């Protein structure tokens, strides 16, 4: 792991990113920098390309054009060891994606052993530490199917943390959860943010974005429309599209029936 010597170098850097699925242009030129320790929430309507952008940051989606750098390494370089770079990037999915055939502890320790080559005892120790961080030590021997959605998502966060990542990506981490389970997951994310983790979070949780994020990025139609501090983007949006999105989100009952605008056809995935 290369410790950065250049303090000015952003942890995540996206340059001129384009992504198309067939004829469908989902991302149309994204430029974004996220500094070390910064928490950036990406918001926007469904189909705006925000999840695709996140997935391009660890190359789960191959960009059509443009560059992605994480910790100074260019991921879009065809000769880069992508598995090695991904070890430094933790990812949390909407659907948790825990390994159902393994216990909670095994979910955390197997990747450490197979990918990082840690021995059994070390992997178990790191697994236990990270389960404690997310408050689920008592579920160590349980299987994922016996956990609630909120617990599964916290295990998924712990699994990513056990690899010792420098950056964490969250893809709508609370969207699949029952409302009463959202709080526990957000609390863990808040803790991570306070510890100084660099985080990029695609979310619909405006309260979280407002309170925890250093910056909020609003995307629509495959481009970044607005980028700034939460109070500015959420509290005092400059663009009509942002205002429109926020008013719908904050008060869905007030939304009016209207024609689909043709530049929003891009579907996330």
């Amino acid at each position, binding site marked *: 792991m290369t410790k950065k010597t250049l303090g000015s170098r952003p942890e995540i850097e996206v340059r001129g990113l384009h992504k198309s699925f067939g004829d469908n242009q989902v991302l149309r030129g994204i430029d974004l920098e996220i500094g070390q320790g910064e928490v950036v929430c990406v918001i926007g309507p469904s189909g705006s390309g925000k999840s695709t952008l996140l997935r391009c940051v*660890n190359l*789960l989606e191959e960009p059509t054009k443009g560059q992605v750098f994480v910790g100074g390494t260019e991921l879009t370089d065809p000769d880069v060891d992508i*598995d*090695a770079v*991904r*070890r430094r*990037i*933790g*990812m949390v*999915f909407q*659907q948790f*994606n*825990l*390994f*159902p*055939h393994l216990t909670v502890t095994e979910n955390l320790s*197997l*990747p450490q052993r*197979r*990918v*990082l080559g840690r021995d059994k005892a070390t992997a178990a120790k790191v697994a236990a530490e990270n389960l404690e961080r997310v408050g689920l030590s008592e579920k160590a021997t349980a299987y994922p*199917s016996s956990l609630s959605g909120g617990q599964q998502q916290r295990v*998924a966060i712990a*699994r*990513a943390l056990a*690899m010792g990542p420098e950056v964490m990506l969250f893809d709508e981490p609370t969207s699949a959860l029952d409302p009463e389970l959202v709080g526990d997951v957000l609390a863990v994310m808040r803790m991570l943010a306070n510890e100084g983790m660099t985080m990029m979070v695609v979310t619909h949780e405006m309260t979280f974005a407002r309170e925890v994020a250093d910056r909020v990025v609003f995307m629509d139609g495959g481009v970044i429309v607005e980028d700034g501090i939460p109070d500015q983007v959420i509290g005092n949006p400059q663009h009509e599209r942002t205002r429109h999105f926020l008013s719908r989100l904050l008060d869905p009952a007030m939304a009016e029936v209207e024609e689909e605008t043709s530049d929003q056809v891009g579907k996330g995935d």
Partner: protein
Amino acid sequence: MTDTTGADVELQPKKKGLTRRQKRSLSRGIQYVVFVAAVIAFAVAADWDRLQNQFAQKAIAEQMFPEVITLALKNTVLYTVSGFAVGLVLGMVIALMRLSSVGPYRWLAGVYIEIFRGLPALLIFIFIGVAVPLAFPGTEIPGGTYGKVALALGLVAAAYMAETIRAGIQAVPKGQMEAARSLGFSPARAMISIIIPQAFRIILPPLTNELVLLFKDSSLVLFLGVTLEERELSKFGRDLASQTANSTPILVAGLCYLLVTIPLGFVVRRMEAKAQEAVK
């Protein structure tokens, strides 16, 4: 009853003919009558004395033991298990070839599956027994008859198992591979550590069914020509049947097959029920 019918008629006009309930009991009644009639007809028509004489001679049956178990059943199990092992390994390779991003691999795997699924197992046995020694003079398939059976059964089983394994791998949600890759697993390692263990859980019932099919197909070994020591259930039963001019050995051999296949079928149903439960 009679008091209310008048009111019912006015509220709900009666349809012509039978009610739904009457139709249902009539239909069930007919089915029972047909069943009982068929059983009686069979029992009366069959010549039970001759049947017993030909198929259920206690003395002949007793004469088969213990070899029918210690030799014939043992060999049947041995042929089946070795064929299954070869089929599983080969089937896994073909399944992975079928899912490969390399075109020729996919194509080759597809051709293999079509050929070996389309040919009768009998032809494969004859091919292994006759054609291979002719084509490659001097080559000896290791393991003698056991090796030949394992190869012939394995070649057939691999075609079916490859399709089953491929379906199992594809049934594992896409998110599992994505999660593994995002943790830094290489594609091969993710396949081995994460995807294949889950796929096997899914395909355990169909694989066990394949084992039952192989168990029966192992009888085809008699087309390879076997020594006395290599005889399995069918050959053993047939030999004894011709020796004694009586079919009792065939019946005993058949019962020995069922001794294994029925419990296996029970296990498969249990596994399927458990899998259903897990999905819910």
